[in-house]
C-alpha cells in the first residue's frame, strides 16, 4: 500500500466489535491485570455485565444463571446490528425452546454455520429520566493501536426509549431496546418526536440533578470504559499505520450512575434522524478527516482537534489548564464529553493554510 493511503478500518476490528470476542478479550485482559497488578486494578474492568458465548459456554452460563434465579438476561446475536434478533428471557425454559425450534427466521436457517449468540445479564436498574430508559452513543477515534492513540469526541447523544420502563413487559422489545432503528418500527413512534438528547443536554441535566462532582466522576468512569476496552485488544488488533477507525460506543447508566459497556460498533450509523443529528454527524466526519490529516497540516503534538480531545497517547493525557488553575498537583484528564464544542474557533486557530493556498 502506498504511503499516503488511509483506510478507515483495522483489519481485525471484530476483536473489539463482535460481542463474543470483545468479551473474551476483556476477560483475558482482566485476568492479566489481576495477576500482574492486583485486584483493585482489575476491578476497573468490571463495566461489562456477565456475558457468556453460546453455544460454546452454555454450561458455565447455566451455572451462573442458576446462582441468581429471577434475574433477567438478554440474548444477542454476535454479528448483527440495529437490534435485530435480540430478546429477553428469565427462565431457562425460554431459551431451551428457542434453541430447539424454528423461532429463527428463514434467513438464519440458511446460514451454513451455527450462529453465535451471547447471553448477557440484563441491567435491571437502568438510570431513568422521567421514567424512560436511555443509552449513550459516544464516538471514539483510534488512529493507532501500537502505541495506542485514541481521541474522544465531545458531542454524542442519548437515545431514549419511546415507552416507559418496567420489568413486567419483557416481551415489549420496544421498551428495552433503545436503538433508534428499533424504535422506528414501534407503533407509537413519531418521527417528529426525536427521541434523542444531545450529550451536552444530558450532562447538563445530570449536573443539575446530582451536582458537579458526581457527574465529573461519572464521566471519568466512562473514559475508563473506553480506555480499558481498547487496551484489552491492543495486542490482538493488527496494527497498521495506514489504518484508523471511528467507533460508536454504546453505554448504559444504571441507577447508581455506574456506566456499563453494551457494545462497540466499528461502523456507527451515519444516517441522520434530524437536522441536528445531521449536523452532529457531519461535524464528526469533518473532524475525523482533520485528524487523519491527509494534507499534512498538523504537527502531531496536538491535544485537541476540532471536537476531538486526545484521550490516550500511550498513556493518559492531561489538560494544560488543569495544572495551573487548581494550584495543586491534581491532574485533570483531557476529555470533555458533553462539554461545549467550540470547534470552529479551535480549528481556525489550529489549521494554518497549507502550502499553495493563498492567505485570505
Amino acid at each position: 500500500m502506498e504511503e499516503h493511503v488511509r483506510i478507515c478500518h483495522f483489519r481485525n476490528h471484530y476483536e473489539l466489535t463482535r460481542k463474543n470476542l470483545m468479551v473474551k478479550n476483556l476477560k483475558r485482559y482482566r485476568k492479566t491485570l489481576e495477576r500482574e497488578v492486583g485486584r483493585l486494578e482489575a476491578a476497573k474492568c468490571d463495566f461489562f455485565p456477565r456475558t457468556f458465548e453460546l453455544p460454546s459456554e452454555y454450561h458455565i452460563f447455566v451455572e451462573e444463571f442458576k446462582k441468581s434465579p429471577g434475574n433477567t438476561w438478554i440474548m444477542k446475536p454476535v454479528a448483527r446490528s440495529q437490534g435485530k434478533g435480540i430478546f429477553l428471557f428469565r427462565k431457562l425454559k425460554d431459551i431451551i425452546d428457542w434453541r430447539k425450534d424454528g423461532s429463527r427466521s428463514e434467513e438464519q436457517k440458511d446460514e451454513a454455520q451455527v450462529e453465535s449468540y451471547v447471553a448477557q445479564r440484563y441491567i435491571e436498574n437502568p438510570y431513568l429520566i422521567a421514567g424512560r430508559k436511555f443509552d449513550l452513543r459516544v464516538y471514539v477515534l483510534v488512529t493507532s493501536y501500537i502505541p495506542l492513540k485514541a481521541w474522544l469526541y465531545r458531542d454524542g447523544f442519548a437515545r431514549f426509549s419511546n415507552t416507559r420502563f418496567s420489568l413486567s413487559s419483557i416481551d415489549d422489545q420496544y421498551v428495552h431496546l433503545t436503538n433508534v432503528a428499533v424504535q422506528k418500527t414501534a407503533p407509537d413512534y413519531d418521527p417528529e418526536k426525536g427521541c434523542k438528547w444531545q450529550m451536552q443536554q444530558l450532562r447538563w441535566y445530570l449536573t443539575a440533578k446530582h451536582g458537579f462532582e458526581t457527574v465529573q466522576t461519572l464521566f471519568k468512569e466512562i473514559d475508563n470504559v473506553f480506555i480499558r476496552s481498547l487496551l484489552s485488544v491492543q495486542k490482538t488488533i493488527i496494527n497498521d499505520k495506514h489504518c484508523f477507525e471511528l467507533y460508536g460506543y454504546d453505554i448504559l447508566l444504571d441507577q447508581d450512575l455506574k456506566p456499563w459497556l453494551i457494545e462497540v460498533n466499528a461502523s456507527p450509523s451515519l444516517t441522520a434522524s434530524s437536522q441536528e443529528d445531521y449536523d452532529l454527524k457531519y461535524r464528526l466526519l469533518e473532524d475525523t478527516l482533520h485528524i487523519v490529516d491527509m494534507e499534512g497540516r498538523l504537527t502531531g503534538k496536538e491535544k485537541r482537534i476540532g471536537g476531538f480531545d486526545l484521550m490516550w497517547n500511550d498513556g493518559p493525557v492531561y489538560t494544560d489548564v488543569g495544572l495551573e488553575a487548581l494550584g495543586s498537583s491534581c491532574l485533570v484528564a483531557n476529555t470533555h464529553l458533553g462539554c461545549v464544542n467550540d470547534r470552529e474557533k479551535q480549528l481556525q486557530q489550529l489549521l494554518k493554510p497549507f502550502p499553495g493556498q493563498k492567505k485570505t
Partner: protein
Amino acid sequence: MMDESTELSVSITQIVQRLKGTHLHSQLEKQAKECLHKPEIKLETLKDDVRRVLKASGWERKLQNAVYRELHVLPPPGHPRAPPEHTKEPLAYMLKAQASWEKRILKSLNSMCTELGIPLARKRPVMEQKELTNKWNEMGTDEPDLSNFRPVYAPKDFLEVLIGLRNPNTERSDDLTVKSHWGLIQVSLNVHDIPQMRETYAELGLSYGQLGIDDHTHVPPDLFESEHIHIGKKVVSEQDSAAAQQYSRQGCPTGLRAQLWSLILNTTNDPEDITHYEQLKARVIHHNLLVDNLIYKDVKLTASNDDYYFVFEDYLYQVLLCFSRDTAVLEHFNYNSASPPKSSIQSKSGSEQCAVVYPPNGVIPFHGFSMYVAPLCFLYNEPSKLYSVFREMYIRYFFRLHSISSHPSGIVSLCLQFERLLQAHLPQLFYHLREIGAQPLRIAFKWIVRAFSGYLSTDQLLLLWDRILGYNSLEIVAVLATAVFAFRAENLMEVTSLASAEAVLADLSTLKVMPLLQIFLFATSI
C-alpha cells in the same frame, strides 16, 4: 396616605395573620415546648432563652424565610378606604377590560362544552379510576381523541385585546397623530428606561461576574466561577431565603440551582406538602374535568414536540392536572386583576343552577401554558416538589403574563416597555419594521407571554429565570426581547415582509442570554 410606621404595623399584622395556623406556626410551637426541657432554659429569662435556642437550631431562619415570602406575595397596603378591587388593579379601565376578556374566554369554554356535549366535570366510574391510578406515571402513553378540542385561546388572541386597550381619560382619536404611539400598545404606563435600569440591575453590570458570561470555557474559573460556587454552597447551607435571592442575580450554578430556587420561593417538601399533593392527585382520579382535555392537547402540541422537553411529558400531566384542582391557588386572585371564572353547574338535586368556580383553581389554560412547567422538570423530579415550585412561580410571576393589569411586571407594561426601548434605541429599525407591516411586538409577544420558554435553549432560559427570581420582576423579559432585536438588527433591516422578519427571528436556540442583556443595558449609548 399612611405614614411609614403605620404602614409597617399594618404589614406586620397582616403577615402575622397569614402565618397563624400554618404548619410552620405549629412546628415552632412544638419546638418551643420541646426546648423547655433543656437545662439552659431558666424561668427568669424564659423568653430570651427560648428565642436563643430557636435561633441556634435554625428555626428563626425558617421563620425569616416565611416572612420574606409573605412580603413578596402580599400587595402593598393601600388606603384604608379603598375597596378590595384596588388591590387587584387600581386602574378601573384595566379592570374592566380584564373582566370583559374573561367573559369571552368563559363563553368560549362553555360553548365548546355545549357543542361537544361533554360536561364541565364528571365523576369517573370505578374502572376508569383504577385504570388511571395504574397509569399515573405514564399518562403520556394515552392517546385520547382530542381532535374536537381547540385551545380556548392562543397568545395572539390575547394580543389583539391588549392592542384594543384605551384609557378613557386620554384623547379619544383613532387617527394616527403625532401624539399617538408608534407601536401597538396605546396606553401610557410608567416603564423604566435604560438609565433607571442600570441602577436597578446593577449586578448585571460589566464590573460584576455573571454566570452565563464568566463561566465560559476560555475564562479561567478562578476569576469568578469557583468563588461564586463556593458562596452558593454557603448560601444553601445557611438556608437563607433573602441571601439566595440576592445571590441569584448573578446566576445560579447548575448543581445548586434546584436548591436555591426552592429557597428563594420558600417551598418545602414536608409531609404536609406531600399530603396536599396526594389529595390533589386523588381529586384527579375521582373526577374528570373538561379542562383536562385542554391540558392534554396543549402538552401534546407543545412540550411533546420539543427536543428538550418531550421526555417530561408525563410529569407535565401530573403537575397540570393537579394544578387545575388546587383551590389554594384561588388566594392569588386577591392581587391578580383577573377573577376566577364561575360556571353554572347543576346542583345535586338537579333543580337549580349554582355558580361554582371552574376550573377549581380559577385558571383556564391556554395554548402554550404547559411551557411554564416544562423547564422546571430539569430541576425537580419528585412530582410533589416540582408541583410546589411551579405553583409558587405561577402565583408570583406567571399569572401576570396573561392578565390585563397596570403592574410593572404585567404583560401590558412589558409589551409597552419593549416597544419603548426599541423605539428609543433602534428607531430606524422600528420605523422600518412598521413600514413593512411587521410591528415588532407581533413577533416578540409570544416570547414575552411564555417568558421565553420553548424559544431559548434550556440552560439559557434558566439563566434568565434566575434573574427573574433574583430581581423579583419580569421586566428582564422585555429587556431581553429588545436585546434580541438589537442583536439581529442588521438582518432585520434587510427584510421586506412580516414573514421574512419572522424567519430572521424564528430560531433563538443559539442565543446567549447574559451577554445580550449586558450589552444592551450597559453598552448602549444613551
